[in-house]
Protein backbone atom coordinates (compact mmCIF):
# COMPACT_ATOMS: atom_id res chain seq x y z
CA UNK A 1 0.00 0.00 0.00
CA UNK A 2 2.80 2.43 0.91
CA UNK A 3 4.41 1.69 -2.46
CA UNK A 4 1.26 2.97 -4.20
CA UNK A 5 1.12 6.09 -2.01
CA UNK A 6 4.86 6.75 -2.57
CA UNK A 7 4.39 6.20 -6.29
CA UNK A 8 1.46 8.59 -6.33
CA UNK A 9 3.43 11.31 -4.48
CA UNK A 10 6.42 10.92 -6.80
CA UNK A 11 4.09 11.09 -9.80
CA UNK A 12 2.58 14.35 -8.52
CA UNK A 13 6.13 15.67 -8.03
CA UNK A 14 7.02 14.80 -11.66
CA UNK A 15 3.95 16.65 -12.88
CA UNK A 16 4.40 19.69 -10.64
CA UNK A 17 8.10 20.06 -11.46
CA UNK A 18 7.23 19.93 -15.18
CA UNK A 19 9.38 16.88 -15.89
CA UNK A 20 10.32 17.35 -19.57
CA UNK A 21 9.96 13.70 -20.55
CA UNK A 22 6.50 13.39 -18.99
CA UNK A 23 5.27 16.53 -20.75
CA UNK A 24 6.84 15.67 -24.07
CA UNK A 25 5.01 12.32 -24.08
CA UNK A 26 1.76 13.97 -22.98
CA UNK A 27 1.88 16.68 -25.67
CA UNK A 28 2.67 14.10 -28.35
CA UNK A 29 -0.34 12.05 -27.26
CA UNK A 30 -2.58 15.09 -27.42
CA UNK A 31 -1.22 16.18 -30.79
CA UNK A 32 -1.65 12.74 -32.38
CA UNK A 33 -5.13 12.18 -30.96
CA UNK A 34 -6.41 15.69 -31.68
CA UNK A 35 -5.24 15.38 -35.27
CA UNK A 36 -6.83 11.96 -35.62
CA UNK A 37 -10.08 13.20 -34.08
CA UNK A 38 -10.19 16.17 -36.42
CA UNK A 39 -9.52 14.05 -39.51
CA UNK A 40 -11.94 11.36 -38.29
CA UNK A 41 -14.69 13.96 -37.80
CA UNK A 42 -14.19 15.52 -41.21
CA UNK A 43 -14.46 12.06 -42.81
CA UNK A 44 -17.22 10.62 -40.61
CA UNK A 45 -19.82 13.39 -40.46
CA UNK A 46 -20.43 13.57 -44.23
CA UNK A 47 -20.58 9.74 -44.34
CA UNK A 48 -23.16 9.75 -41.53
CA UNK A 49 -25.19 12.42 -43.36
CA UNK A 50 -25.13 10.44 -46.58
CA UNK A 51 -26.24 7.30 -44.73
CA UNK A 52 -29.01 9.16 -42.90
CA UNK A 53 -30.53 10.92 -45.90
CA UNK A 54 -30.03 8.47 -48.76
CA UNK A 55 -31.40 5.01 -49.33
CA UNK A 56 -29.43 2.32 -51.11
CA UNK A 57 -29.23 -1.44 -51.14
CA UNK A 58 -27.33 -2.88 -48.19
CA UNK A 59 -27.63 0.31 -46.15
CA UNK A 60 -28.88 -1.39 -43.00
CA UNK A 61 -26.17 -4.08 -43.23
CA UNK A 62 -23.60 -1.31 -43.46
CA UNK A 63 -25.09 0.46 -40.43
CA UNK A 64 -25.01 -2.82 -38.47
CA UNK A 65 -21.41 -3.33 -39.50
CA UNK A 66 -20.50 0.17 -38.31
CA UNK A 67 -22.13 -0.51 -34.94
CA UNK A 68 -20.23 -3.77 -34.68
CA UNK A 69 -16.96 -1.97 -35.41
CA UNK A 70 -17.41 0.16 -32.24
CA UNK A 71 -15.76 -2.76 -30.45
CA UNK A 72 -13.05 -3.35 -33.01
CA UNK A 73 -9.95 -4.62 -31.13
CA UNK A 74 -7.22 -2.02 -31.35
CA UNK A 75 -4.50 -4.63 -31.89
CA UNK A 76 -6.38 -5.79 -34.96
CA UNK A 77 -6.36 -2.24 -36.33
CA UNK A 78 -2.69 -2.06 -35.45
CA UNK A 79 -2.01 -5.25 -37.38
CA UNK A 80 -4.06 -4.12 -40.38
CA UNK A 81 -2.39 -0.70 -40.60
CA UNK A 82 1.02 -2.28 -39.99
CA UNK A 83 0.47 -4.58 -42.99
CA UNK A 84 -0.67 -1.66 -45.13
CA UNK A 85 2.21 0.62 -44.15
CA UNK A 86 5.01 -1.92 -43.94
CA UNK A 87 7.67 -1.71 -46.62
CA UNK A 88 6.04 -4.46 -48.69
CA UNK A 89 2.49 -3.23 -48.04
CA UNK A 90 0.39 -1.31 -50.58
CA UNK A 91 1.04 2.00 -48.80
CA UNK A 92 4.61 1.21 -47.81
CA UNK A 93 6.04 3.82 -50.19
CA UNK A 94 4.67 6.59 -47.91
CA UNK A 95 7.14 5.53 -45.24
CA UNK A 96 4.64 6.09 -42.45
CA UNK A 97 5.34 2.99 -40.37
CA UNK A 98 6.76 3.84 -36.93
CA UNK A 99 5.86 7.50 -37.38
CA UNK A 100 3.26 9.73 -35.68
CA UNK A 101 1.54 9.92 -39.11
CA UNK A 102 1.03 6.16 -39.12
CA UNK A 103 -0.34 6.32 -35.56
CA UNK A 104 -2.81 9.01 -36.66
CA UNK A 105 -4.02 6.73 -39.47
CA UNK A 106 -4.58 3.93 -36.95
CA UNK A 107 -6.56 6.19 -34.61
CA UNK A 108 -8.64 7.59 -37.47
CA UNK A 109 -9.64 4.03 -38.46
CA UNK A 110 -10.41 3.28 -34.82
CA UNK A 111 -12.75 6.23 -34.28
CA UNK A 112 -14.54 6.46 -37.63
CA UNK A 113 -17.15 3.79 -36.68
CA UNK A 114 -17.91 5.61 -33.42
CA UNK A 115 -18.25 9.00 -35.08
CA UNK A 116 -20.28 7.70 -38.04
CA UNK A 117 -22.51 5.52 -35.86
CA UNK A 118 -23.34 8.12 -33.22
CA UNK A 119 -23.84 10.93 -35.77
CA UNK A 120 -26.04 8.66 -37.90
CA UNK A 121 -28.15 7.76 -34.84
CA UNK A 122 -28.55 11.45 -33.97
CA UNK A 123 -29.55 12.37 -37.51
CA UNK A 124 -32.06 9.55 -37.91
CA UNK A 125 -33.69 10.26 -34.56
CA UNK A 126 -34.21 13.91 -35.50
CA UNK A 127 -37.88 14.86 -36.05
CA UNK A 128 -38.48 14.54 -39.83
CA UNK A 129 -40.37 17.85 -39.76
CA UNK A 130 -37.05 19.58 -38.94
CA UNK A 131 -35.59 18.25 -42.18
CA UNK A 132 -38.72 19.13 -44.15
CA UNK A 133 -38.82 22.63 -42.68
CA UNK A 134 -35.19 23.33 -43.60
CA UNK A 135 -35.77 22.16 -47.17
CA UNK A 136 -39.04 24.05 -47.36
CA UNK A 137 -37.36 27.28 -46.25
CA UNK A 138 -35.19 27.12 -49.35
CA UNK A 139 -31.86 25.73 -48.10
CA UNK A 140 -29.43 24.48 -50.74
CA UNK A 141 -27.54 21.23 -50.06
CA UNK A 142 -24.74 22.82 -48.02
CA UNK A 143 -27.14 25.03 -46.05
CA UNK A 144 -29.29 21.97 -45.38
CA UNK A 145 -26.30 20.00 -44.08
CA UNK A 146 -25.10 22.82 -41.84
CA UNK A 147 -28.60 23.49 -40.46
CA UNK A 148 -29.19 19.82 -39.70
CA UNK A 149 -25.79 19.51 -38.01
CA UNK A 150 -26.57 22.59 -35.94
CA UNK A 151 -29.68 20.84 -34.61
CA UNK A 152 -27.78 17.71 -33.56
CA UNK A 153 -24.53 19.43 -32.58
CA UNK A 154 -24.66 18.36 -28.92
CA UNK A 155 -24.77 14.69 -29.85
CA UNK A 156 -21.92 15.26 -32.29
CA UNK A 157 -19.88 17.01 -29.57
CA UNK A 158 -20.47 13.97 -27.35
CA UNK A 159 -19.46 11.63 -30.17
CA UNK A 160 -16.26 13.61 -30.76
CA UNK A 161 -15.45 13.52 -27.03
CA UNK A 162 -16.05 9.78 -26.96
CA UNK A 163 -13.90 9.26 -30.04
CA UNK A 164 -11.10 11.35 -28.54
CA UNK A 165 -11.28 9.31 -25.33
CA UNK A 166 -11.16 6.02 -27.21
CA UNK A 167 -8.23 7.16 -29.36
CA UNK A 168 -6.06 8.63 -26.61
CA UNK A 169 -6.53 5.63 -24.35
CA UNK A 170 -5.80 2.86 -26.87
CA UNK A 171 -2.44 1.09 -26.68
CA UNK A 172 -2.48 -1.89 -29.04
CA UNK A 173 -2.40 -0.02 -32.35
CA UNK A 174 -0.05 2.66 -31.00
CA UNK A 175 2.60 0.09 -30.10
CA UNK A 176 2.30 -1.91 -33.33
CA UNK A 177 2.18 1.10 -35.70
CA UNK A 178 4.30 3.56 -33.71
CA UNK A 179 6.82 1.18 -32.26
CA UNK A 180 7.06 3.19 -28.99
CA UNK A 181 10.19 5.02 -30.15
CA UNK A 182 11.45 7.31 -27.41
CA UNK A 183 11.20 10.97 -28.34
CA UNK A 184 9.34 10.19 -31.56
CA UNK A 185 6.32 7.86 -31.30
CA UNK A 186 6.14 7.23 -27.56
CA UNK A 187 2.74 8.31 -26.25
CA UNK A 188 1.07 8.12 -22.83
CA UNK A 189 -0.37 4.63 -23.17
CA UNK A 190 2.67 3.00 -24.74
CA UNK A 191 4.95 4.72 -22.22
CA UNK A 192 2.79 3.50 -19.30
CA UNK A 193 2.96 -0.01 -20.69
CA UNK A 194 6.74 0.12 -21.07
CA UNK A 195 7.58 1.90 -17.79
CA UNK A 196 5.33 -0.44 -15.78
CA UNK A 197 7.04 -3.49 -17.28
CA UNK A 198 10.38 -1.90 -16.34
CA UNK A 199 9.27 -1.30 -12.76
CA UNK A 200 9.10 2.54 -13.03
CA UNK A 201 5.74 2.71 -11.28
CA UNK A 202 6.04 6.39 -10.30
CA UNK A 203 6.66 7.45 -13.88
CA UNK A 204 3.75 5.29 -15.08
CA UNK A 205 1.46 6.76 -12.46
CA UNK A 206 2.39 10.30 -13.44
CA UNK A 207 1.51 9.53 -17.05
CA UNK A 208 -1.70 7.82 -15.93
CA UNK A 209 -2.74 10.86 -13.92
CA UNK A 210 -2.12 13.09 -16.94
CA UNK A 211 -4.20 10.74 -19.09
CA UNK A 212 -7.05 10.98 -16.61
CA UNK A 213 -6.64 14.75 -16.43
CA UNK A 214 -6.89 15.03 -20.23
CA UNK A 215 -10.13 13.02 -20.16
CA UNK A 216 -11.48 15.38 -17.48
CA UNK A 217 -10.51 18.46 -19.49
CA UNK A 218 -12.20 17.09 -22.64
CA UNK A 219 -15.39 16.47 -20.69
CA UNK A 220 -15.21 19.89 -19.09
CA UNK A 221 -14.76 21.61 -22.47
CA UNK A 222 -17.71 19.72 -23.96
CA UNK A 223 -19.93 20.64 -21.02
CA UNK A 224 -18.83 24.27 -21.26
CA UNK A 225 -19.65 24.38 -24.99
CA UNK A 226 -23.07 22.93 -24.32
CA UNK A 227 -23.80 25.38 -21.49
CA UNK A 228 -22.53 28.30 -23.54
CA UNK A 229 -24.92 27.34 -26.30
Amino acid at each position, binding site marked *: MSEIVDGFLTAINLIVTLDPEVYEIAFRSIYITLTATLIGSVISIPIAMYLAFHDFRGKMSLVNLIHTLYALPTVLIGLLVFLMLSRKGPLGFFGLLFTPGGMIIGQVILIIPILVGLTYSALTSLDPVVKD*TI*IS*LGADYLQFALSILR*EVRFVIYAAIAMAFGRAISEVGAAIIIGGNIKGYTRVLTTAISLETSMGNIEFSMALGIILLFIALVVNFVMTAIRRGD
Partner: protein
Amino acid sequence: MIRVEDLQKSFGNNPVLRGVDLEVADGEIFVIIGPSGQGKSTLLRIIDTLEVPTSGDVWIGSDSLYSHGDANHHDMRKKVGMVFQNPAIFQGTVFENVAYGLRYRKITSEEMHERVETTLREVGLEGYEKREARKLSGGEKQRIAFARTMVTRPEIILLDEPTSNVDPVTTEKIEEIILYTRKTYNTTMIMNTHDMLQGQRMGDRIGVMMHGKIMQSGTPKEIFTLPATGEIARFIGFDNVFDGTVETTDGHTAVIQSGNTRVYGETTLPQGAAVTWCIRTEDMHLHMKERPGGAGKLRNHLEGRVTSIGLVGPENHVMADCGIPLEVVVGWRFADRVGVKTGDRIWVSFNPEAVHVMPR
Protein backbone atom coordinates in the same frame (compact mmCIF):
# COMPACT_ATOMS: atom_id res chain seq x y z
CA MET B 1 -51.42 30.65 -60.11
CA ILE B 2 -50.91 27.00 -59.17
CA ARG B 3 -52.05 24.27 -61.52
CA VAL B 4 -51.93 20.62 -60.54
CA GLU B 5 -52.32 18.19 -63.43
CA ASP B 6 -53.29 14.55 -63.05
CA LEU B 7 -51.01 14.15 -60.05
CA GLN B 8 -50.44 10.57 -58.94
CA LYS B 9 -48.35 9.28 -56.08
CA SER B 10 -47.84 5.78 -54.77
CA PHE B 11 -45.80 4.64 -51.81
CA GLY B 12 -44.73 1.13 -52.83
CA ASN B 13 -47.89 -0.57 -53.98
CA ASN B 14 -50.10 1.82 -52.08
CA PRO B 15 -51.56 4.56 -54.29
CA VAL B 16 -52.21 7.72 -52.28
CA LEU B 17 -52.97 10.26 -55.02
CA ARG B 18 -54.96 8.92 -57.95
CA GLY B 19 -55.07 11.81 -60.38
CA VAL B 20 -55.47 15.16 -58.65
CA ASP B 21 -56.42 18.12 -60.82
CA LEU B 22 -56.56 21.55 -59.28
CA GLU B 23 -56.20 25.23 -60.13
CA VAL B 24 -55.75 27.95 -57.56
CA ALA B 25 -55.74 31.60 -58.64
CA ASP B 26 -53.31 34.23 -57.38
CA GLY B 27 -54.32 35.53 -53.97
CA GLU B 28 -56.93 32.81 -53.51
CA ILE B 29 -57.33 30.72 -50.36
CA PHE B 30 -58.20 27.18 -51.39
CA VAL B 31 -59.14 24.87 -48.53
CA ILE B 32 -58.89 21.10 -48.84
CA ILE B 33 -61.11 19.07 -46.55
CA GLY B 34 -61.42 15.32 -46.38
CA PRO B 35 -61.08 12.35 -44.07
CA SER B 36 -57.65 11.38 -42.75
CA GLY B 37 -55.38 9.33 -44.99
CA GLN B 38 -56.81 10.56 -48.29
CA GLY B 39 -53.62 12.25 -49.49
CA LYS B 40 -54.16 15.87 -48.42
CA SER B 41 -50.71 16.22 -46.82
CA THR B 42 -49.03 14.30 -49.65
CA LEU B 43 -50.50 16.75 -52.16
CA LEU B 44 -49.07 19.73 -50.26
CA ARG B 45 -45.70 17.99 -49.85
CA ILE B 46 -45.51 17.43 -53.62
CA ILE B 47 -46.33 21.10 -54.30
CA ASP B 48 -43.53 21.98 -51.83
CA THR B 49 -41.21 19.47 -53.61
CA LEU B 50 -40.76 17.45 -50.42
CA GLU B 51 -42.10 14.42 -52.29
CA VAL B 52 -41.77 13.54 -55.96
CA PRO B 53 -44.97 12.46 -57.73
CA THR B 54 -45.21 9.12 -59.48
CA SER B 55 -46.70 10.98 -62.45
CA GLY B 56 -48.36 14.28 -63.25
CA ASP B 57 -47.03 17.77 -62.78
CA VAL B 58 -47.41 20.96 -60.80
CA TRP B 59 -47.19 24.37 -62.46
CA ILE B 60 -46.42 27.57 -60.61
CA GLY B 61 -47.28 30.30 -63.05
CA SER B 62 -45.68 29.12 -66.29
CA ASP B 63 -42.97 27.03 -64.57
CA SER B 64 -43.27 23.28 -64.28
CA LEU B 65 -42.00 21.68 -61.09
CA TYR B 66 -41.47 18.18 -62.36
CA SER B 67 -41.04 18.13 -66.14
CA HIS B 68 -37.31 18.91 -65.89
CA GLY B 69 -36.36 16.48 -63.10
CA ASP B 70 -35.39 18.27 -59.92
CA ALA B 71 -33.16 20.82 -61.67
CA ASN B 72 -35.22 23.87 -60.82
CA HIS B 73 -36.67 22.67 -57.51
CA HIS B 74 -34.40 24.88 -55.48
CA ASP B 75 -35.34 28.13 -57.23
CA MET B 76 -39.01 27.19 -57.32
CA ARG B 77 -39.00 26.23 -53.66
CA LYS B 78 -38.17 29.81 -52.74
CA LYS B 79 -41.54 30.83 -54.17
CA VAL B 80 -43.36 28.40 -51.88
CA GLY B 81 -43.52 28.21 -48.09
CA MET B 82 -45.13 25.57 -45.93
CA VAL B 83 -46.47 25.59 -42.39
CA PHE B 84 -46.65 22.13 -40.86
CA GLN B 85 -49.17 20.64 -38.45
CA ASN B 86 -46.54 20.15 -35.73
CA PRO B 87 -44.05 22.93 -36.32
CA ALA B 88 -40.35 22.21 -35.95
CA ILE B 89 -38.85 24.82 -33.68
CA PHE B 90 -35.09 25.08 -34.02
CA GLN B 91 -32.70 25.55 -31.15
CA GLY B 92 -32.11 29.21 -30.41
CA THR B 93 -34.11 32.39 -30.03
CA VAL B 94 -37.33 33.46 -31.69
CA PHE B 95 -35.31 35.84 -33.90
CA GLU B 96 -32.99 33.03 -35.03
CA ASN B 97 -35.96 30.81 -35.82
CA VAL B 98 -37.78 33.41 -37.87
CA ALA B 99 -34.59 34.47 -39.68
CA TYR B 100 -33.74 30.91 -40.79
CA GLY B 101 -35.11 31.18 -44.33
CA LEU B 102 -33.69 34.69 -44.76
CA ARG B 103 -30.18 33.43 -44.01
CA TYR B 104 -30.56 31.00 -46.91
CA ARG B 105 -31.35 33.98 -49.15
CA LYS B 106 -28.22 35.88 -48.18
CA ILE B 107 -29.85 39.25 -47.55
CA THR B 108 -28.18 42.03 -45.59
CA SER B 109 -28.24 42.01 -41.82
CA GLU B 110 -30.21 45.28 -41.72
CA GLU B 111 -32.89 43.95 -44.04
CA MET B 112 -33.04 40.71 -42.06
CA HIS B 113 -33.61 42.57 -38.80
CA GLU B 114 -36.20 44.82 -40.35
CA ARG B 115 -38.14 41.95 -41.93
CA VAL B 116 -38.04 39.74 -38.83
CA GLU B 117 -39.22 42.56 -36.61
CA THR B 118 -42.01 43.52 -39.04
CA THR B 119 -43.18 39.93 -39.31
CA LEU B 120 -43.08 39.33 -35.56
CA ARG B 121 -45.25 42.43 -35.15
CA GLU B 122 -47.64 41.10 -37.80
CA VAL B 123 -48.08 37.77 -36.01
CA GLY B 124 -48.41 39.41 -32.60
CA LEU B 125 -45.02 38.35 -31.23
CA GLU B 126 -43.41 41.78 -31.02
CA GLY B 127 -40.74 41.85 -28.29
CA TYR B 128 -40.22 38.07 -28.39
CA GLU B 129 -36.99 38.30 -30.44
CA LYS B 130 -34.59 37.23 -27.70
CA ARG B 131 -36.77 34.61 -26.05
CA GLU B 132 -35.85 30.93 -26.22
CA ALA B 133 -38.21 29.64 -28.94
CA ARG B 134 -38.58 26.10 -27.59
CA LYS B 135 -39.82 27.38 -24.25
CA LEU B 136 -42.89 29.10 -25.74
CA SER B 137 -46.45 27.72 -25.77
CA GLY B 138 -47.81 25.57 -28.61
CA GLY B 139 -49.77 28.49 -30.05
CA GLU B 140 -46.77 30.81 -29.96
CA LYS B 141 -44.64 28.13 -31.63
CA GLN B 142 -47.18 27.84 -34.43
CA ARG B 143 -47.09 31.62 -34.87
CA ILE B 144 -43.27 31.45 -35.04
CA ALA B 145 -43.62 28.78 -37.73
CA PHE B 146 -46.01 31.00 -39.65
CA ALA B 147 -43.75 34.04 -39.22
CA ARG B 148 -40.74 31.99 -40.40
CA THR B 149 -42.56 31.17 -43.63
CA MET B 150 -44.19 34.58 -44.04
CA VAL B 151 -40.93 36.52 -43.58
CA THR B 152 -39.50 35.05 -46.80
CA ARG B 153 -42.46 36.58 -48.69
CA PRO B 154 -43.35 33.45 -50.68
CA GLU B 155 -45.87 33.70 -53.52
CA ILE B 156 -47.60 30.61 -52.17
CA ILE B 157 -48.08 29.37 -48.62
CA LEU B 158 -49.15 25.78 -47.99
CA LEU B 159 -50.82 25.21 -44.64
CA ASP B 160 -51.05 21.61 -43.45
CA GLU B 161 -53.67 21.60 -40.69
CA PRO B 162 -52.02 24.60 -39.01
CA THR B 163 -54.51 24.83 -36.16
CA SER B 164 -55.20 21.20 -35.37
CA ASN B 165 -53.07 21.22 -32.21
CA VAL B 166 -53.87 24.64 -30.78
CA ASP B 167 -56.61 26.09 -28.60
CA PRO B 168 -59.60 28.03 -30.02
CA VAL B 169 -58.15 31.45 -29.13
CA THR B 170 -54.90 30.65 -30.96
CA THR B 171 -56.89 29.20 -33.85
CA GLU B 172 -58.71 32.52 -34.19
CA LYS B 173 -55.40 34.40 -34.06
CA ILE B 174 -53.81 32.18 -36.72
CA GLU B 175 -56.86 32.56 -38.96
CA GLU B 176 -56.53 36.35 -38.61
CA ILE B 177 -52.85 36.11 -39.58
CA ILE B 178 -53.70 33.99 -42.64
CA LEU B 179 -56.34 36.46 -43.82
CA TYR B 180 -54.02 39.41 -43.08
CA THR B 181 -51.20 37.80 -45.11
CA ARG B 182 -53.45 37.23 -48.08
CA LYS B 183 -54.82 40.76 -47.91
CA THR B 184 -51.43 42.44 -47.40
CA TYR B 185 -49.19 40.38 -49.68
CA ASN B 186 -51.76 38.82 -52.05
CA THR B 187 -50.31 35.42 -51.11
CA THR B 188 -51.93 32.36 -52.65
CA MET B 189 -52.73 29.74 -50.04
CA ILE B 190 -53.70 26.10 -50.01
CA MET B 191 -54.83 24.95 -46.61
CA ASN B 192 -55.62 21.46 -45.36
CA THR B 193 -58.03 21.22 -42.49
CA HIS B 194 -60.25 18.63 -40.90
CA ASP B 195 -62.34 21.44 -39.40
CA MET B 196 -65.13 21.99 -41.91
CA LEU B 197 -66.33 25.18 -40.25
CA GLN B 198 -62.81 26.55 -40.56
CA GLY B 199 -62.88 25.61 -44.23
CA GLN B 200 -66.11 27.53 -44.60
CA ARG B 201 -64.67 30.56 -42.77
CA MET B 202 -61.34 30.68 -44.55
CA GLY B 203 -61.82 29.29 -48.04
CA ASP B 204 -62.65 31.25 -51.14
CA ARG B 205 -63.15 27.78 -52.54
CA ILE B 206 -63.14 24.35 -50.95
CA GLY B 207 -62.04 21.05 -52.41
CA VAL B 208 -63.22 17.77 -50.93
CA MET B 209 -60.49 15.17 -51.16
CA MET B 210 -61.41 11.50 -51.04
CA HIS B 211 -59.80 8.35 -52.43
CA GLY B 212 -56.77 10.35 -53.57
CA LYS B 213 -58.78 12.78 -55.72
CA ILE B 214 -60.49 16.12 -55.43
CA MET B 215 -64.02 14.75 -55.64
CA GLN B 216 -65.72 18.15 -55.62
CA SER B 217 -64.62 21.76 -55.50
CA GLY B 218 -66.61 24.94 -55.27
CA THR B 219 -67.53 27.81 -53.02
CA PRO B 220 -68.22 26.93 -49.39
CA LYS B 221 -71.94 27.41 -50.03
CA GLU B 222 -71.90 25.03 -52.99
CA ILE B 223 -70.01 22.39 -51.06
CA PHE B 224 -72.10 22.54 -47.93
CA THR B 225 -75.51 22.72 -49.63
CA LEU B 226 -75.00 20.81 -52.86
CA PRO B 227 -72.65 17.84 -52.22
CA ALA B 228 -71.85 15.88 -55.37
CA THR B 229 -72.10 12.39 -53.89
CA GLY B 230 -73.62 10.62 -50.92
CA GLU B 231 -70.15 10.03 -49.49
CA ILE B 232 -69.38 13.75 -49.61
CA ALA B 233 -72.80 14.51 -48.11
CA ARG B 234 -72.10 12.20 -45.17
CA PHE B 235 -68.61 13.67 -44.73
CA ILE B 236 -69.76 17.29 -44.63
CA GLY B 237 -72.37 16.54 -42.02
CA PHE B 238 -75.61 15.39 -43.65
CA ASP B 239 -77.07 12.83 -41.23
CA ASN B 240 -79.85 11.77 -43.55
CA VAL B 241 -78.44 10.28 -46.75
CA PHE B 242 -80.37 7.59 -48.64
CA ASP B 243 -80.32 5.73 -51.91
CA GLY B 244 -83.45 5.61 -54.06
CA THR B 245 -84.95 5.51 -57.55
CA VAL B 246 -86.92 8.20 -59.39
CA GLU B 247 -90.41 6.68 -59.66
CA THR B 248 -92.16 9.54 -61.43
CA THR B 249 -91.16 13.09 -62.34
CA ASP B 250 -92.65 16.22 -63.86
CA GLY B 251 -89.19 17.35 -64.91
CA HIS B 252 -88.81 19.55 -61.85
CA THR B 253 -90.06 17.57 -58.87
CA ALA B 254 -89.69 13.80 -58.63
CA VAL B 255 -91.20 11.12 -56.45
CA ILE B 256 -88.32 9.06 -55.16
CA GLN B 257 -88.85 5.51 -53.96
CA SER B 258 -86.49 5.05 -51.02
CA GLY B 259 -86.59 2.26 -48.43
CA ASN B 260 -90.25 1.62 -47.59
CA THR B 261 -91.42 5.13 -48.39
CA ARG B 262 -91.66 7.78 -51.06
CA VAL B 263 -90.37 11.36 -50.86
CA TYR B 264 -90.73 14.39 -53.11
CA GLY B 265 -87.49 16.04 -54.15
CA GLU B 266 -86.52 18.68 -56.69
CA THR B 267 -84.46 17.17 -59.49
CA THR B 268 -84.32 17.06 -63.25
CA LEU B 269 -83.12 13.45 -63.28
CA PRO B 270 -85.34 11.19 -65.37
CA GLN B 271 -87.73 8.46 -64.31
CA GLY B 272 -85.92 5.26 -63.33
CA ALA B 273 -82.67 7.07 -62.40
CA ALA B 274 -80.77 5.62 -59.48
CA VAL B 275 -80.20 8.47 -57.05
CA THR B 276 -78.83 9.36 -53.65
CA TRP B 277 -80.72 12.03 -51.78
CA CYS B 278 -80.03 13.85 -48.57
CA ILE B 279 -81.58 16.37 -46.25
CA ARG B 280 -80.21 18.34 -43.32
CA THR B 281 -81.72 17.57 -39.93
CA GLU B 282 -82.58 21.24 -39.38
CA ASP B 283 -84.68 21.32 -42.58
CA MET B 284 -87.23 18.84 -41.17
CA HIS B 285 -90.08 19.40 -38.75
CA LEU B 286 -91.35 16.96 -36.16
CA HIS B 287 -95.07 16.73 -35.39
CA MET B 288 -96.73 14.72 -32.66
CA LYS B 289 -100.02 14.71 -34.64
CA GLU B 290 -100.78 14.36 -38.30
CA ARG B 291 -100.98 17.79 -39.96
CA PRO B 292 -104.56 18.76 -40.74
CA GLY B 293 -104.90 18.40 -44.47
CA GLY B 294 -101.91 16.05 -44.72
CA ALA B 295 -98.69 17.07 -46.42
CA GLY B 296 -100.17 20.10 -48.20
CA LYS B 297 -97.57 22.35 -49.83
CA LEU B 298 -94.79 20.61 -47.94
CA ARG B 299 -95.49 17.49 -50.02
CA ASN B 300 -93.41 15.31 -47.66
CA HIS B 301 -95.25 14.25 -44.49
CA LEU B 302 -93.95 10.88 -43.34
CA GLU B 303 -95.43 8.86 -40.51
CA GLY B 304 -93.13 6.91 -38.24
CA ARG B 305 -92.14 5.83 -34.75
CA VAL B 306 -89.41 7.19 -32.52
CA THR B 307 -86.68 4.55 -32.16
CA SER B 308 -84.29 6.53 -29.95
CA ILE B 309 -83.48 10.03 -28.70
CA GLY B 310 -79.97 11.30 -28.16
CA LEU B 311 -78.87 14.50 -26.45
CA VAL B 312 -76.22 16.52 -28.29
CA GLY B 313 -75.55 19.77 -26.41
CA PRO B 314 -78.83 21.69 -26.19
CA GLU B 315 -80.41 19.62 -28.97
CA ASN B 316 -82.39 16.40 -29.04
CA HIS B 317 -81.59 14.14 -31.98
CA VAL B 318 -84.74 12.13 -32.58
CA MET B 319 -84.27 8.91 -34.59
CA ALA B 320 -87.49 7.82 -36.25
CA ASP B 321 -88.38 4.88 -38.46
CA CYS B 322 -90.45 6.44 -41.26
CA GLY B 323 -89.83 3.67 -43.77
CA ILE B 324 -86.33 5.13 -43.78
CA PRO B 325 -84.35 5.86 -40.60
CA LEU B 326 -84.62 9.65 -40.35
CA GLU B 327 -82.78 11.80 -37.82
CA VAL B 328 -84.57 15.01 -36.81
CA VAL B 329 -83.18 17.72 -34.55
CA VAL B 330 -85.49 19.48 -32.08
CA GLY B 331 -84.65 21.93 -29.32
CA TRP B 332 -84.89 20.68 -25.73
CA ARG B 333 -87.71 23.14 -24.94
CA PHE B 334 -89.81 21.70 -27.77
CA ALA B 335 -88.93 18.14 -26.75
CA ASP B 336 -89.95 18.86 -23.13
CA ARG B 337 -93.16 20.62 -24.16
CA VAL B 338 -94.43 17.84 -26.42
CA GLY B 339 -92.94 15.08 -24.23
CA VAL B 340 -91.54 13.10 -27.17
CA LYS B 341 -90.19 9.71 -26.16
CA THR B 342 -89.08 6.41 -27.67
CA GLY B 343 -91.98 4.46 -29.21
CA ASP B 344 -94.15 7.56 -29.86
CA ARG B 345 -95.99 7.82 -33.14
CA ILE B 346 -94.77 10.96 -34.95
CA TRP B 347 -94.84 12.69 -38.35
CA VAL B 348 -91.90 14.30 -40.10
CA SER B 349 -92.47 16.96 -42.75
CA PHE B 350 -90.14 18.72 -45.15
CA ASN B 351 -90.14 20.64 -48.42
CA PRO B 352 -89.07 19.04 -51.72
CA GLU B 353 -86.61 21.92 -52.22
CA ALA B 354 -84.80 20.87 -49.01
CA VAL B 355 -84.16 17.46 -50.56
CA HIS B 356 -80.84 17.43 -52.44
CA VAL B 357 -80.86 14.74 -55.11
CA MET B 358 -77.67 13.39 -56.72
CA PRO B 359 -77.19 10.78 -59.44
CA ARG B 360 -75.88 7.53 -58.00
